[in-house]
């Protein structure tokens, strides 16, 4: 009897311990705890099969790995091995996400994401790209294979001691292939693609608000941006402009580009397509919310600028770049130097892809921002069963089948692209340029091998998707080019003139050949500028070119230009610019639009009788210098005023039409309307002053209730940064931290405008900062993280404090901390 009791007790304990399926992963030897033993780098020799000669790797005190090999084959094997040894779990999770196969790892919770990836076409495009690069660029494909080989060498070597992430999910890594790298490239391409969702949003707003109201809040060129284009001037590029083609830019931009001449569709149709368009929007939104763009988030972007030799204190070009992406722990970036005969590049690569995407060589430097011109266009399709109609005839749709978790799914393609929504005999297809293979990785490796400005330009001839504003600096020359494939549509204007335009504001008629993509902007006429005469240029997602550009950006969905204005005014007034000036500008937390809007707000409130709290808030606002440090109360008063103003203007109108989920108008639209249409019945109920006073009254009352006395309304209490883990587990992320900046400051910390305390967490910001002067061998950089994905490693977040403080690492002079030899 006693023995029976003991047996039952033992069995019960064992059974209970196995309720958690992977209880044994808590064992101290090779379970989760082994991550505690892998937290630091250890100098030593590591054998990697496939290497022809030993490869030396040193890790410097900032966490940058310097990989020195005797040939490119060994170099890329070593890069693959090193990156996998630091980021394998991240890389595989990202590859699964991009390949639409995440559900095989995490189950049904990822099913919608996987379906969205297939619908957008990311896995299909990756397969096409893989074949294309293999056939057309075999030498470079070899480098990508070398990288994969290095990744797999690490996977095989680590079989008995897997990274923490794999133990947490109870999975083993799969073998890496070039297809996984291409899938991640395609995902990042989608992340940086403009269009696709934009046309659907503007159509929904058009049908609800009408052209006049829509134009007020979403003008083709955002308000106050005509003087701050990337290419200075009226839009002439290499001598070509609209006027010389006999087309009046004034006439062209005065047209209603939602109307039938532009789209082939009767605008009265839009209201009946509301459900279809909303389904399309939903179907191509990444349910993981990881994507920076192509979601319904607030405006986000990146910064870059250059000063020419004549404008710099050192008589040599200086470049600055800080791309704004979703801030993740670990970062999307991994810092590395690649050195072998024919290449010596230092900078940041995307984990999972060979090469360096942003960085410098000894004599060149480059960075990128997103130009925001549409490369994904949506078409309305007429369907009949499995057929679509084109030019009066029916054709059978091409069917793509795939399986997830044992179930089969299909996607149907018209001649324009995949159907992203269907209702009865109508559907919406998406034409995305990434379905044309783009050898961006080849361009990237060529950039890594560049030794002068013209070599960088030549490398970018191969860059197609997504178009990017490449900021370039060599020893003598500096400039910009918006490299990439911009698809054009041949439009016939109401006056009979023809013009090739980029993108649309609206759904296009997929059945009508007149609205098909028929060409692309020639490389020579892509927006570009070299050594601008005024001494500087900048490209923080504002309009790239003026309205006289020969290929009008009808599908230009630019940001409001607040960062561009700050950069413009700074550079304009800082001749003899230094590298330190560039760093100072990257740390700027002044909100330019606030400096324009606050005087208007104060004036509207001046006649208001106020209680003590309101008077104090008013005083704080009137004394505010428009900076958004964490101890600023002026920023809080300003931001919540705008949130309240939105709540009773734009949000109200959007809600009335059931469109609350759509992107809200820019702050500049509110400013413009307050100045130019203060008695608008639609937006201000007849009086901006009255609306403004109501917003202010509500704001003070709201914040008193949520935050207490006015003097305690510091920005850091409501504006908070979280650097999340890709797994979604907050324990594996970084933060929350009180955060400076706002959506319009150069040192950006984007926040969607919600009336809540605290604001929704900041999740997008400068994913790295780079300042370079190649002629003087000055290269500085910092990013919010470190090379390792192990959350208890020093190298998980070793650069984070410097990033917060706007400090930089000299990328040439760091001391060596650790030495590896791969042999």
């Amino acid at each position, binding site marked *: 009897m006693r023995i029976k009791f003991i047996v039952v007790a*033992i069995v019960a304990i064992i059974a209970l311990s196995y309720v958690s399926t992977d209880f044994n992963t808590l064992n*101290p*030897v090779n379970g989760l705890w082994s991550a505690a033993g892998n937290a630091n780098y250890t100098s030593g020799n590591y054998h990697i099969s496939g290497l022809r000669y030993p490869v030396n790797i040193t890790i410097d005190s900032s966490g940058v790995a310097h990989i020195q090999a005797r040939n490119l084959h060994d170099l890329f094997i070593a890069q693959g091995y090193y990156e996998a040894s630091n980021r394998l779990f991240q890389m595989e999770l990202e590859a699964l996400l991009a390949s639409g196969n995440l559900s095989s790892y995490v189950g049904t919770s990822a099913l919608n994401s996987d379906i969205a990836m297939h619908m957008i076409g990311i896995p299909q495009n990756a397969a096409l790209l893989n074949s294309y690069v293999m056939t057309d660029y075999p030498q470079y494909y070899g480098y990508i294979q070398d990288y994969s080989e290095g990744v797999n060498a690490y996977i095989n070597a680590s079989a008995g001691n897997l990274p923490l992430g794999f133990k947490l999910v109870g999975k083993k890594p799969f073998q890496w292939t070039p297809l996984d790298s291409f899938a991640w490239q395609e995902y990042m391409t989608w992340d940086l693609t403009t269009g696709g969702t934009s046309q659907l949003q503007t159509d929904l707003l058009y049908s609800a608000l009408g052209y006049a109201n829509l134009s007020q809040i979403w003008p083709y060129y955002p308000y106050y941006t005509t003087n701050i284009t990337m290419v200075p001037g009226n839009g002439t590029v290499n001598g070509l402009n609209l006027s010389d083609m006999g087309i009046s830019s004034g006439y062209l931009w005065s047209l209603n580009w939602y109307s039938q001449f532009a789209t082939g569709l009767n605008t009265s149709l839009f209201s009946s397509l509301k459900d279809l368009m909303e389904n399309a929007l939903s179907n191509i939104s990444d349910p993981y919310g990881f994507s920076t763009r192509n979601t319904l988030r607030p405006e986000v972007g990146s910064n870059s600028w250059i000063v020419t030799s004549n404008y710099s204190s050192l008589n040599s070009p200086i470049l600055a770049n800080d791309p704004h992406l979703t801030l993740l722990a670990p970062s999307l970036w991994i810092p590395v130097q690649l050195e072998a005969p024919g290449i010596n590049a230092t900078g940041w690569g995307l984990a999972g892809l060979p090469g360096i995407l942003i960085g410098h060589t000894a004599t060149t430097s480059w960075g990128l921002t997103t130009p925001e011109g549409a490369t994904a266009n949506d078409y309305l399709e007429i369907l009949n069963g499995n057929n679509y109609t084109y030019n009066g005839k029916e054709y059978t749709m091409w069917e793509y089948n795939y399986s997830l978790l044992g179930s089969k799914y299909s996607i149907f393609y018209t001649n324009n692209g995949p159907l992203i929504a269907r209702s009865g005999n109508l559907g919406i297809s998406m034409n995305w340029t990434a379905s044309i293979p783009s050898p961006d990785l080849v361009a990237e490796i060529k950039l890594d091998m560049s030794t002068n400005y013209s070599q960088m330009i030549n490398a970018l001839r191969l860059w197609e998707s997504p178009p990017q504003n490449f900021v370039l600096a060599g020893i003598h020359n500096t400039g910009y080019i918006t490299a990439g494939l911009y698809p054009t549509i041949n439009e016939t204007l109401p006056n009979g003139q023809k013009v090739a335009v980029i993108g649309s504001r609206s759904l296009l008629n997929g059945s009508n050949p007149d609205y098909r993509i028929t060409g692309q902007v020639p490389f020579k006429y892509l927006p570009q500028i070299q050594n601008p005469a005024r001494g500087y240029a900048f490209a923080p997602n504002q309009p790239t070119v003026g309205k006289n550009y020969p290929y009008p950006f009808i599908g230009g969905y630019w940001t409001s230009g607040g960062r561009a204005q700050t950069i413009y005014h700074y550079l304009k007034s800082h001749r003899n610019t230094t590298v330190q000036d560039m760093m100072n500008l990257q740390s700027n937390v002044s909100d330019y639009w606030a400096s324009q809007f606050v005087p208007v707000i104060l004036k509207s409130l001046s006649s208001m009788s106020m209680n003590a709290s309101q008077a104090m808030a008013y005083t704080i606002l009137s004394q505010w210098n428009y900076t958004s440090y964490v101890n600023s109360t002026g920023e809080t008063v300003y931001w919540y005023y705008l949130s309240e103003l939105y709540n009773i203007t734009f949000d109200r109108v959007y809600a009335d039409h059931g469109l609350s989920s759509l992107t809200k108008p820019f702050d500049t639209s509110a400013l413009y309307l307050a100045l130019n249409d203060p008695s608008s019945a639609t937006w201000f109920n007849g009086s901006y002053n009255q609306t403004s006073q109501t917003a202010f009254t509500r704001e003070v009352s709201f914040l008193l209730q949520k935050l207490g006395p006015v003097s305690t309304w510091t920005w850091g209490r409501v504006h908070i940064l979280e650097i999340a883990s890709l797994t979604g*587990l907050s324990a594996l992320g970084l933060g929350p931290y009180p955060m400076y900046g706002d959506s319009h400051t150069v040192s950006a910390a984007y926040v969607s405008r919600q009336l809540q305390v605290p604001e929704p967490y900041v999740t997008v910001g400068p994913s790295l900062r780079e300042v370079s002067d190649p002629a003087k061998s000055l290269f500085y950089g910092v990013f919010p993280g470190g090379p390792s994905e192990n959350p208890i490693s020093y190298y998980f977040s070793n650069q984070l404090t410097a990033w917060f403080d706007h400090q930089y690492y000299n990328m040439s002079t760091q001391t060596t901390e650790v030495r590896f030899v791969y042999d």
Partner: protein
Amino acid sequence: MTKMGAVLSIIASAAVSYATLFFLPLAYLAVIAAIPLMYLKGWRSFVAGLIVGIGSAFSLYLIYPFQKVAELSAIIGGIVSLSPVLVLVVFPLVYGLILGFASLLWSEIRENVVQRKAKSGTGSGN
């Protein structure tokens, strides 16, 4: 059982425990590590097993830097919504309990066998 014999049993159990934890770190293998403790009687075998189990499993954390173990326990605790201390002790505790009860089991079995042998020996004498 002499004192020396008890100590040797405990040492042998600890040795088997370390061996299984290193090479086959599965909690139920504590049943094997408990075998040498069968020579202890009653509650002594349970207590010895519990101590050997908890001690051997817990001491293995010493192969890692303490601070890193503490940081990791906070992270894992955050993921599974448990106290970091509990996350740290749960495996050694469960392992120790299995080892303790298994020791008791082996001890009971051994005593039963011995008693049966003794009984059968008495019978043959009659």
